[in-house]
């Protein structure tokens, strides 16, 4: 009936452990996430599509330079030299890197052809 105690202030729960956990989660997600989509250069598997049509289109990538069907060609002239050999830019073009050629050099050629509109690049050994 009697209450002689002073009214105690309401105690708030201790938030510190929750903040610790939330900070750990935050740091985890900051470290583990990868932002921004990667850029890609498309490449087709050999043997896809409906057969071959037209003249051969073989781009050899050698350490010294490029050759189209065995004829040396400058990188900037490659797209122009390929143009008469295709009926449509979606016709496949075969790339054959030789020994000693790095992936970077191959990707540069793929990039060059991709910029010229050739959308089906096939890499063969």
């Amino acid at each position: 009936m009697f209450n002689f105690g002073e009214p105690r202030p309401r105690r708030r729960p201790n938030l510190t452990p929750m903040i610790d956990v939330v900070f750990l989660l935050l740091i985890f997600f900051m470290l583990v996430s990868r932002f921004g989509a990667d850029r890609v250069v498309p490449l087709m598997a050999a043997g896809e599509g409906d057969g071959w049509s037209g003249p051969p289109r073989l781009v050899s990538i050698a350490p010294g330079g490029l050759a189209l069907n065995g004829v040396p060609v400058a990188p900037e002239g490659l797209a122009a030299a390929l143009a008469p050999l295709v009926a449509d830019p979606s016709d496949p073009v075969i790339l054959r890197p030789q020994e000693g050629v790095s992936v970077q050099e191959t990707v540069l050629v793929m990039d060059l052809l991709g910029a010229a509109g050739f959308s089906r690049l096939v890499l063969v050994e």
Partner: protein
Amino acid sequence: MDFSDPPRPARSENLLPMINVVFLLLIFFLIAARLAGPEPFPVTVPEAESDMLAEDGFTLWLGPGGEAGFADALGDEAVEALAAARAAHCATADCVAEPPVLLLRADADAPAAALAALMPALGAMGFARMDMVTLPR
């Protein structure tokens, strides 16, 4: 003589605004982040001008020496592991309507012949299109 009030106990700062901000950051990272799987080995992808964006898919790695890597398998085992992973994926998903994409993370210094040597095996698995991951210049 000091007649000022006795020192009051220091009040703890109000933490709620900070907690709000931290929660907002946490939710931002949860939503915005794409979790990246571990790399079998570090690679430096080649540079290119392409502005095509990568889609999500399987990732095959090619190290500077030309060795393949997938998840934690290396060499020929990586190719087998990739084939198994694709088969497991296709058992539950419709791979004909939506063929899975293969991302190739090849090191810029890797021999291109090693990459070309992988192509028949990858094509035989059913990957019609492979995307080489590049860095924008």
